[in-house]
């Protein structure tokens, strides 16, 4: 339990950054995908 408590800040931060990067990838890849469709 004590170990989990120690790990908690890391796990929360990992989840936040993970979600952030997923969002970043979606936006950037999506924009380029749209650009490719638009070019066609």
């Amino acid at each position, binding site marked *: 339990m004590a170990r989990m408590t120690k*790990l908690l800040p890391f796990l929360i931060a990992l989840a936040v950054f993970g979600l952030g990067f997923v969002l970043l990838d979606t936006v950037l890849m999506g924009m380029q995908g749209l650009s490719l469709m638009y070019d066609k």
Partner: protein
Amino acid sequence: MTTRGWNNMHIARSVNPMSKLVMFALFAALVVLVAGGLSEFGALAGENGVGAAAGDGATAYQPAPKLTERDYPTIAGINSRLVVWVFAQLHLWFAAFVLAVPIFVFIIEAIGMKTRDKRYDDMAYEFIKVTITAYSLTAILGGGLLFSLILFYPHLFTYLSVIFKESMFWYAVLFFAESAVLYLYYYGWHWLQGGFRKWVHLTLGLLLNAVGTTLMLLANAWLTFMMSPNGVDAAGVFSGDSWAAIHNFLWNPINIHRFVANIAYGGSIVGAYAAFKFLTARNGQERAHYDWMGYNANFIAICALLPLPFAGYYLAAEIYAYSQQMGITLMGGIFAWLFIIQAVLIGTLFLSANYYLWCGMGRSDGAKRYTKYIKYIAIVLVGSFLVWFTPHTLVLTNSELKSLGGPYHSVLGPLGIMPAKNSAVNLMILFTYLSFMFYRRSNKVATVSWEGTGNAIQVALFTAGIVNIMFLGIYHGYFTNTAYKVAASIPQVVTTLVVIVGSIVLDGFMYRGSKEVGPLHWGRIPERAQYALFLLAVAFTWLMGLMGYIRSGIRQHWHVVDIMRDASADAFTPTLGYAANVVSVAAIIFMAMVIFVFWIAQVSTRKSLPAGYWKE
């Protein structure tokens, strides 16, 4: 000021006038040639139907000349391409150095003004002192390049100088301005000290950089026009204005790449200077000073090195976008193997820069808290390095081909494509930053209550970033449409930047009000670390030479791509071995000249007082 400092100034003044004279003579010749309306070339231009003919105030340009082998003068059996190649390369190396150093000299001087720490001012002065001799050599080599172009490639020179007559004129004018400002900046350093005078001096530094950068932008336009001509029709008839010729497709990508690369290169050369001075230092005080100087130079080189792969990638992408043929020749054709050498050299740069940082951690007594992590950074760097230089298609003998079943290795082959390289280089950049973060932390102890949580957030940020980079590289590189292979490189870069910026901000908060472990022991660094600085300078030099050859070589048999064909006896792509030898010999000549520059700077500190020579 110390006696030695005054001696430096005195002797530096007595060394430079000769080279200044040569330099001004060469550029006076350029001004006469260009500002004189190129009248000397008028006959040649008319003969080839190249020149501009004035009619009713409007300028009409002629098509690019169609040349034969007889149009290229041969002088004393000299290989024209070789002469121009070596002069251009040597000029570029020195120019990169002398354009970059004033950029960070300006920044260091400003830091000195802000902090009122005179050490910064002294260091900035010492950097610019090394540049002065190098500046003369740059001008002499530029003159050599100009004359060899006029002598060996008169028709090409005429064609380009008619189109670029205005920019060449302004180049010559700006060169005079650059010389004037540089000498004011250097010789006025100790005169313009304190209060308003210091601001005047700093303004001179800004002006020096503005003029120097404009010079580079103009020269870049001439070479990028040869790769991606603008404002011309299929026959090479120019119908635009000066701006159209300058603002061609590859101008800005080259500008960005060269600007960043020059800073990294300048940092590495002055780093080598500091290493040289460190190794020849006669006492602990000198060693400490040059260790500090070497650290700052390496810091500058690393700061510019980190974004450099992205600038290079952008340039390569733009070359592809302009001409797929040039792009494929660049990385998929004959030059592809030079990119493997490039990868080895870039890996060398990252390894030597990191090695220097690790050695430098020994300056702090608190570094042992972080040394245990260095081996993991080294493993990631070496692993990424191996991926970075794994070729896509192997060069094999027939029997090797048979036993392998083709030139493509089933396991290592997939590492040969760009998504793997992009992932590797992003990891190398992140872990180089990590080395730097450990270096910065090594002499500090955080005092904030949330240090443990802060470290956990740092680890999470790096973990999430690395996983994202690997996901983008593997998933989009191997499991989606080809178009996404290139597209995925953008979120990879952004991820790297987010991690670095996020980590810097977080560390800034964590170490606000931190305590120092103890005073930093400048000079407490092994001598082998100095050789890492030499390696950095040599690897940069060689890398620039080889990649510069590729950039120029992808024009293949064209002087100006698709417009003006090269009809000389050298209108072929030489073997890679030959090209590498030329660049290597040029690099050795350059290094010999750099050692001369360092030696001159060293000589200026010596003083002989022959007894009884001068009458009392």
